[in-house]
């Protein structure tokens, strides 16, 4: 009888531990990627505006400012890309040390609408990438970011995309350095970059 109580007690403890573990895992996930998360090297293989395959490896030696978005997005994406454009202008001669990337999370539609005209409207330095669904998911997983298609009758073509709106900074060795959360003023991004050159 006592043994049975002990058994039940152990089960309760085990389940409680599982719940706490799951809870902390979930909490970490939902915060997105913390600024002080352990170093990792995100990778991608995605087609550019002209259909050429570009990989993370070819950008070694440069800082990357990476934004995941979609061109049908009227509010968050234009705001962030405008901020990136401002940073690129303000960098002056240091601009060559930084490559801004726009990774489409809605690649099929964005290729159809035209990716080159979109990125160029913000800044000629911004390179647009739009891979296959599989390649895009792999890139997002590697950057530890989230995106999801949401059906919405009140959006173009009946859907919109939910996504992590941060701007991600990758170092010249390919290592993750930090994210700038949505709405970080361009001046702050600029001064952060300037401390790293």
């Amino acid at each position, binding site marked *: 009888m006592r043994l049975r109580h002990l058994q039940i007690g152990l089960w309760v403890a085990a389940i409680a531990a599982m719940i706490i573990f799951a809870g902390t895992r979930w909490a970490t996930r939902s915060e997105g990627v913390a600024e002080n998360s352990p170093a990792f090297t995100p990778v991608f293989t995605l087609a550019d505006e002209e259909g050429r395959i570009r990989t993370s490896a070819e950008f070694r030696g440069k800082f990357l400012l990476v934004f995941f978005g979609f061109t049908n997005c*009227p*509010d968050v994406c234009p705001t962030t890309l405008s901020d990136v454009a401002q940073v690129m202008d303000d960098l002056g001669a240091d601009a060559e040390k930084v490559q801004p990337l726009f990774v489409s999370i809605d690649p099929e539609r964005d290729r159809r609408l*035209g990716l080159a005209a979109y990125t160029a409207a913000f800044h000629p330095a911004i390179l647009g990438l739009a891979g296959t669904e599989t390649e895009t998911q792999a890139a997002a997983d590697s950057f530890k970011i989230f995106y999801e298609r949401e059906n919405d009758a*009140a959006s173009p073509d009946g859907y919109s995309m*939910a996504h992590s709106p*941060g701007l991600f900074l990758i170092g010249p060795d390919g290592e993750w350095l930090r994210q700038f959360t949505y709405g970080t003023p361009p001046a702050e991004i600029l001064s952060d970059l300037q401390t790293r050159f």
Partner: protein
Amino acid sequence: MKHLLLAATLSLTASAALACETVTLGDLSVEHGWSKVTIGAGRPGVFYVSISNVGATDDALVGISTPAAGMPMLHETVVKDGVASMPHAMSIPVPAGQSVQLSPGGYHGMLMGLTAALKEGDSFPVTLSFEKAGEVTVNVEVLSLRAEGPDCADAGQ
């Protein structure tokens, strides 16, 4: 006909202070209607505006319409747990004695089915429908992609 009307509207492009006009409707005043350049006509435009309610009765913005777009809708950008989404807003509260902004990163009008790409310096009318006060039309000014809002400092009201 619709295109002709739109062309006529766009050709009436006025001074840069257009977005700084204040239009009143009962206790509501509506100002700073602005939009951003679009890259082609196939992608939605955006509509931002300021509304203030000096009355004692709560009201709400329940819809927008414009000759510039076939399907204008109200949306809200929500960033929750590190993920941005853009749900459709059925109505935007305009409580008594308060003002509400449709501005980047929050509530905004999404102009789908544009009749033409929006170019810097263009202007077009948007009619706002309020639950109680009824309808009012404001002129919306198209600003550059990098604009953060109209500069009304020297508008002299």
